């Protein structure tokens, strides 16, 4: 049991036990409030550059399995948990969380007061932090946090774009069921070709499209509009990804050129990038939304969906008007913007994760809406908000 230290830029220092790999890692600390889904969190490329604290204290209970993966490897910088079990238990599991982290070279810490960390992050906002099994000197660690580049302004997409090129549909297992609301278009004449701009897209977005009978192709999010149009897709999906959207200028430029040419659906970072491309503004949230219980109201239907979220930046709802779009979804906790649709074009986006994984699948209907939009070339009824 070797010691491990987690230090924050505000001077808070937590000492616990090393978990996974040894060494030193830095990143922006955030907390995730889902009670299950650590494997999906670990493999979600959107967490690139971040040290993630799980607020649920017992992590690793059901081990690691080969199917619940959102990418081929772990992308986050560091992992913080209160307690790991001596023995995991689940019929799908093939290895323990700590073995997996070690294998993936990820440094983690356990045995720390994760609720205290969460309260610090809640009050102070997401913070630069460092996790180390090598250095125990608090002062040194704290000063090193101040050298870590801030999240704002960082283009982290470069590190993950096109990761999904290796994705195969056989990654789906019986347990990783995609939502059952899908319309089965498999093999039909209406089969649509969807090109996914990969800024770190989660596998489950691809699975959801695939079960709905789409031919899915991925392309790096850092591509040109010409490269996209050459492939002549029926529609484009801009997926999730890490970092500051404003910093991913090449993608914003690409989108600017694509808007109006094909139906587009944006998710998470995709939502922010589309908003930027349309001329709306984005800003950094204090500590973001990372969890599986965020209530979101669909303004067209009035219904509330419980959503899976993972974002540190948001789109300024007030700036949408100048972008020719209008809000479709609002977060009920803090009233931040969770989705918008274009006033005239077949384009909509949501800030949260309709593909769930981890989290509730209440919003899976958005993939159906996307397909409908491809067919009708207009915003579907359940996203059509009256002015």
């Amino acid at each position, binding site marked *: 049991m070797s010691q491990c230290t987690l230090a924050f830029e505000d001077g808070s220092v937590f000492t616990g036990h090393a978990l996974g790999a040894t060494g030193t890692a830095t990143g922006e600390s955030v907390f995730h*409030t889902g009670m*299950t889904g650590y494997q999906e969190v670990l493999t979600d490329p959107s967490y690139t550059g971040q040290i993630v604290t799980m607020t649920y204290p017992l992590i690793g*209970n059901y081990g690691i399995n080969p199917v619940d993966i959102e990418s081929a490897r772990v992308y986050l910088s560091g992992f913080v948990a209160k307690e790991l079990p*001596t023995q995991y238990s689940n*019929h799908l599991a093939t290895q323990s969380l700590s073995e997996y982290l070690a294998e993936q070279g990820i440094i983690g810490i356990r045995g720390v007061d994760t609720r205290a960390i969460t309260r610090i992050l809640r009050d102070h906002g997401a913070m630069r932090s460092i996790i180390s099994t090598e250095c125990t000197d608090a002062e040194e660690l704290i000063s090193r946090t101040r050298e870590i580049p801030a999240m704002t302004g960082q283009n982290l997409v470069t590190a993950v774009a096109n990761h999904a090129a290796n994705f195969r549909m056989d990654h789906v297992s019986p347990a990783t069921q995609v939502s059952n609301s899908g319309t089965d278009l498999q093999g039909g004449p209406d089969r649509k070709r969807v090109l996914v701009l990969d800024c770190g897209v989660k596998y489950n977005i691809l699975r959801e499209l695939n079960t709905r009978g789409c031919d899915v192709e991925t392309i790096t999010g850092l591509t040109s509009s010409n490269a996209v149009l050459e492939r002549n897709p029926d529609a484009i999906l801009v997926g999730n990804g890490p970092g500051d959207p404003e910093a991913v200028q090449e993608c914003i430029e690409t989108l600017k050129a694509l808007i109006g040419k094909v139906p587009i659906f944006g998710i998470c970072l995709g939502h922010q990038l589309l908003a930027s491309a349309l001329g709306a503004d984005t800003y950094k949230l204090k500590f973001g939304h990372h969890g*599986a*219980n965020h209530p979101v109201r669909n303004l067209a239907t009035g219904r509330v969906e419980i959503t899976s979220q993972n974002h540190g930046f948001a789109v300024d709802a007030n700036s949408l008007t100048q972008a020719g779009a209008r809000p479709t979804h609002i977060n009920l906790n803090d009233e931040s913007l969770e989705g918008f649709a274009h006033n005239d074009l077949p384009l909509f986006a949501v800030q949260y994760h309709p593909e769930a994984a981890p989290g509730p*699948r209440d919003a899976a209907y958005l993939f159906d809406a996307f397909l409908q939009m491809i067919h009708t070339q207009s915003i579907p009824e359940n996203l059509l908000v009256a002015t």
Partner: protein
Amino acid sequence: MPKNPDINRVLIIGSGPIVIGQACEFDYSGTQACKALREEGISVVLLNSNPATIMTDPEVADRTYIEPVTPETVDLILQNESDRGTPVDCILPTLGGQTGLNCAMTVSERGILEKHNAYLIGADRETIHRAEDRTGFKESCAEAGVDLPRSVVAHTIEDAESAYTEIGLPCCIRPAYTLGGSGGGFATTREQFDYLVRSGFDASRNHEILIEESLYGWKEFEMELMRDRNDNVVVVCSIENLDPMGVHTGDSITVAPSQTLTDAEYQNMRDASIAIMRAVGVETGGANVQFAISPTDGRLVAIEMNPRVSRSSALASKATGFPIAKIAAKLAIGYALDEIRNDITRETPACFEPTIDYCVVKMPRWTFEKFPESDETLTTQMKSIGEAMAIGRTFKEAFQKCIRSMEIKRNGLGLDTQDAWLDFKRAERAQTLRGENGSLKGRRSGEPVHDWAERAARQWPIADEIVREKLLEPCQGRPYYIRYALKMGYSIDTIYELTKIDKWFLSQINDLCELEDELLNTDPEGPQAESLYCRALQAGYSYAQLSRAWNVDTARLRTFAQKHPGHCYKSVDTCAAEFEAYTPYYYSTHETPFRRNGELIVDDELTLPDKECVIILGGGPNRIGQAIEFDYCCVHAVQATRASGCVAIMVNSNPETVSTDYDTSDILFFEPLVIEDVLNITTAIGDKLKGVIVQFGGQTPLNLAKGLAAAGVPILGTTVDDIHLAEDRSQFQQIMNELGLVQPPSDVAYAVDEAVEIAQRIGFPVMVRPSFVLGGRAMEICNSEDDLRRYMDTALSASDVEDTRVAILIDRFLQDAIEVDVDAVSDFGLYGDEGTCTICGVMEHIEEAGVHSGDSACAIPPYSISRMIIDEIERQTRALARRLNVTGLMNIQFAIKSRRVYVLEVNPRASRTVPFVSKATGIPWAKVATEVMLGRPLCTVLTKYDYDPDKTLDHVSVKEVVFPFNKFPGVDVVMGPEMRSTGEVMGIDKKFAMAFAKAQMAAGQTLPTDGCIYISVNDADKPFILPIARELAEMGFSFVATAGTRDRLSAAGIECELVKRISQNPNNNMLKWIEQNRVQLLINTATVTGRYTDEGKIRAASVRYGIPLITTLTEAHAAVEAIHAMQAGEVTVKALQDYDNMSTSDSNR
């Protein structure tokens, strides 16, 4: 779209008396609902027969009917309300448990709703049917696309053969139409399958068997959901059962949230539960769905659904902070989830799913020791009486805290006085220490070390066959045997094969075992001790356990704790700290401190207002003898404390209660009621603590009083020394002599021979019981020396307090005496001779002395004793209150024999009759007592509550009890000095007779007004039964009896049919009469008892078939009067608010 403007008056149906499977959680949900509706300006009409509920406090609802929960009563209430010009618009049926729901269903089916132009809200008849009916539920699941266990109905061997192919092994074979599942079973091999199919066909009346996929060993889960009228659905909580399928959820150790499911599996279950809720059509409100998941392939099947607020909703509410009942009430009147605010975060809406950052463990509390004839194996039939819940940051911590909360003489999973393994280890150590210094802490006093050590060595290891049996058969001691098995070297895999308890849970228990080994191998003075100590506390070990393992004082461990901070309070906030919480709902934990600017910080979230604080200690898990009545008192204490301007702090571990509603107190600690946990709280409160109230939670807090006082914690109310005076036999006897009061002759014995000597001196029959127990546990009447010797041999271990020498009290038993209970309140302790004492109520028992007071029916005012005797009783009560310096409540039991008054027992604390007396007299006595304890003179307080000592009551109130015998089939139903009832009801009317009749109805024993009565009484009672029988005959009843009684009745000119003894005629005996519904009432006083006697079988059968049974002559007398009244006039209902002096203006509202 906010609330429906057409709803102005709502009737809420409560759940009636506490029974197994339906406890105070429905008082909690009903009270919440009343508050929630009245907040919206809706008038609430309430029906509940249980006087010990907060919901029946006159200020909780606008119109309170303490009447039997029956469709007839609902009809009368609806009529009454409409006659008053305030008609009820609708009934909310989903908050009163199964009783409330069933009552509403019948009301709806009988057209009573249409008659009064009312309707159901929350759930309608079709919905309830789709959820509760087997076929309805099957169809709903199919519609929702959710699997059920596969099953095939077979009528022929060929059908069975194809079922074998379809379902495969293992499977369950159940013959249709047999009682109690006889002839069915579980097949794991082809041979067993063939055998069970054949025997099943034989056993089934219509040659039909059900072959069902076996879910043996599957994991069991529960989902708590809420839905609003806009079809928004949220999952409030998921619960995983530690015990796999086969054990009723109410009897399982359960854990929240689910622990062993991947996110995808969890989401599948979430999707399925929502789909079922929609398919069943629960329009608004709460519901739960149970699931089973195969541990080998993850297959998910639905088991059942409750379309209402349930026991697990209460647990889910306490576990997450999400007030399900309150929200359900708001949804029922038209609100949507996103229109309701989350009280805890204030800023966020109730339309979200709570996320928690701790682990919650709930454990059932059984009372098998009260029913020695019952089968203790845990099955799909719920048997537990209560439960405790604990919260910790880890499963291990919550698990051990929960065991500690159960008050079963355990400090945690092990390392306590019940631990055979530790005894063995200590003996080993003692052997090596022998010669140097033989003294060891913690062993029973007086026993030489070597005897003790040898005994310990004999007990370990446990015999293999015992361990295997305990693991294989679900039973209440199973967790401890899992630990023993691990200590004995069983592998987790082996234990899994035997128990099917998920390996994750087993490995958690194994972690504890390994930590214990480490503890025992570590020198408490050595360098390793420090980190080990912190780890142990984080794993939920108590000082008591560590002190026993390490042989060091708990005081030393406390000093150690000060040097190594880590203990802290965290809040339950529904959101894992994502938002700031405003509701002060706390649990304790041990955390690793962190550093900032060189300072060591433990993140403790406890914040105290700048005011004096008063702690009210609750009663812990419900058990027989200590249940909702005490929680009622605690809630009143909290209310009075808050009203007085102090901060009311509640400490309790029972999730079913109103006292643990975060809305009830200013600050809630969900903690074990164990001395060290309570001392941690008093330490945390520090100088702001005005004192601790120990008087209201029953014996539990009283047992803590001494330890608290010793630690310098101020106790409010009667002092610990005075409490001790009343409890200590010899000192109390002195006081009695001093005051010139009489007790039945008595003495105390510590050994068998001594007991016999005493009994011979004072004369048989004697009443025997251990001191310091509640509810008459292990109390018995012994008629002979043999009886007494047998009793003494077994009873020497029933004391609740650890490590005290067990004293057995022996009293002369007064046969045929009238027993009287008196509750009184006094402030003598504060004002000495200037103080006063007021009698709250004098209750005359209907059963004679000898039946435990908690099992007796009783009446206020007394119905047969003279004014002179009552005056004498009141005089004696005052004298005792003065002498014992009582501050607050006291309860005295008197017996009257030959016009002489005997004092049986004095308890200087609130008794379980306080709620009944309060309801009967219209004065909230627990509040009065609380104000007195806080320092106000009694007379001032009484003036405030408009108490008029000269006012006579214009009504009679009768309390009747209910027994759990229907859950212990076959067990003989006789009353005695051991309390066995679980709940109570109240009947109110102008005269005793009708009040008694109503009490019987409310207890589910509606007396017949015509038909046939079976009479069988013992010889002593025979002369007295004749006048009773004659009166009943005049009232038109016919009789049936066996030869002896028949002859006697015939001789007196009363016609009576003859029935043979069971053994004499298997086809025409009383059991058949009962089965065929040919008898409407049984009057049977016991000659012999036991499940294998004819009498015992008949009594058990009356319970099974729901035929009223009267077992004492006094009760038979009362019944005659009641039947008279029922024949003479219609039953009417009246709200508490319409009685003259029942609805006191309460300053707290």
